[in-house]
């Protein structure tokens, strides 16, 4: 198999306008990855599948990763003017102070795909895409049109991470039920205190039964307890 850098060069030569970034992996596994821009991702994916040398015809694994907002504390050297009494006379002196500044690095959601080639028997190639943020811009293009095996896996990512895949033919929750609101695999997900309670269609029935019990009951209805 070509190295990941060579594949990157091949993509850039073949797909006009494709922006691909190399993401190194320091682990001994040395599975480096390529980050695709969402705008050109589908075209790049089609190239990876159809190119006779690469022939990544098999998408093995698709999954999400949550990168929450990170607060980074940095030590910055700041020069500022301080009024100081020097030799009894008040003067303005420049002074360099170290200051700890906190900045928030905005988080994102990431979709990671592991590709193999069944015909050439090589792999894996890891490709990844990032959303703009974690709240309102969580759209990524769906790769189901290129590899059908993304169908359930992208549904699972949508379910557990909340990435909305544009172009997916049937984007519903896969594992949680349809009325569920949150995305449990996100790192800031808070488990509910009460696992037992779960609104069901039977809530209305229960309420009606309660009302029925309290009503002045006539003949034919047995007294409860």
């Amino acid at each position: 198999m070509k190295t990941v850098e060579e594949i990157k060069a091949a993509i850039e030569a073949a797909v006009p306008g494709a922006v691909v970034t190399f993401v190194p992996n320091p682990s001994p596994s040395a599975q480096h990855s390529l980050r695709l821009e969402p705008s050109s991702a589908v075209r790049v994916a089609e190239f990876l599948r159809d190119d006779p040398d690469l022939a990544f015809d098999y998408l093995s694994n698709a999954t999400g990763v949550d990168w929450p907002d990170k607060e980074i504390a940095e030590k910055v050297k700041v020069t500022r003017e301080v009024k100081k009494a020097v030799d009894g006379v008040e003067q303005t002196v420049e002074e360099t102070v170290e200051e700890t500044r906190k900045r928030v690095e905005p988080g994102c959601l990431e979709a990671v795909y592991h590709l193999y080639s069944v015909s050439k028997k090589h792999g894996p190639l890891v490709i990844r895409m990032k959303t703009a943020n974690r709240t309102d811009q969580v759209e990524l293009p769906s790769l189901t049109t290129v590899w059908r095996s993304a169908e359930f896996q992208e549904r699972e990512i949508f379910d557990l991470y909340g990435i909305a895949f544009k172009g997916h033919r049937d984007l519903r929750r896969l594992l949680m039920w349809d009325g569920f609101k949150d995305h449990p695999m996100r790192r800031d997900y808070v488990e509910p205190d009460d696992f037992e309670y779960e609104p069901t269609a039977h809530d209305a029935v229960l309420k009606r039964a309660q009302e029925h019990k309290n009503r002045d009951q006539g003949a034919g209805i047995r007294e409860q307890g």
Partner: protein
Amino acid sequence: MSGVETKTERTAGWNRPPVIVPTGEGELLELSMGPHHPSTHGVFRMDLTLDGERVVRLRPYFGYLHRNHEKLAEGQTYLASMPYTDRLDYICPLTNNWAYALAVEKLEGIAVPERAEYIRVILGELTRFQNHASSIGFLVQEMGASGTPLMYAFREREKILDLFEELTGARMMCNYMRFGGCRVDITESWLEKTRKVVAGLPGFVDEYEALLASNEILMARCQGIGVLSPELAVNAGVTGPMLRASGINYDIRKVDHYGIYDRFQFRVPLGEHWDVYDRYMVRMLEMRESLRILEQALKEVPGGPIIDPKAKLRGFRPKPGEAYGRIEAPKGELGFYLISDGSPNPYRYRVRPPSLINLTILEDMCLGLNVADVLVIFGSVDIVLGEVDR
């Protein structure tokens, strides 16, 4: 399918199953099958839309057994997830252990001693054997052979589970593999028992084959049913015996040579007709190939340590990075994707479940067939809901 003409067309790309045009006679019937249907292998539900007896739409529903295995694993140390992997595909706990151990070994760059590799291969192939035997049993049970072939398979599975119990202390929840090796060493008496059991297994396969292979009902119900074309199988990520039954020569034991599989001689059985009968036959032949590997591996197990002395069990903190490790589990490609941020817990822990992804094309295979065929096709996929729903 005879007598009814089905009109199917494949829309552009692979992302849609073919469209079945109803005959227009009578109304369509919605049928919800499961989650407590006897032949859904646990809690799986599918909504069928029927035109008479013909299936025109099939929608699978998952999640009845969902406990968010991945979230649980991200909240605890690497080692603490090992017993949980047993519960994924609970028919084959040892291959689940192996896949997870392999992924962590890739992440941290741990080498496995030769003796441990031999033990892993022996246990892995025993697992594959008993999985295929019982999955064929379940398949024929779907066709109404209530129990007999399944009990034949369970009789042999019992012997293999006894071996697991003696070695690991548990019949199904083995929790046996460790990063860089295995938990306890095998003894000479265990090896002797295993050799004895393995020597008896070819007789069982012969008996099983004589019982089933040319059975008229089995042939009538399986041949030409649930055809899956190789192009679609690859594109839909189908793996394991299902992929090979569609004629694709792709066995991760041969492709990746993980462990010490390059030392053993075995063949990869392939299907020709891509139907349920081929899937049955591929599993049957794979059982024989597993026995061949077992005979070679059991001949002489080298001595030495069973775990890498440098591998840390307590206080294990892999360096930041990520790794994807996969093995050829009995049901298909079982992969683990791990991201480490240097802490004792994995930052991301993902299981690639072969059972779930093999179900992607269930609708494609069932459209235009009868309800009774759906059960047979579903049985031929060979799933375990513990792994599908995680």
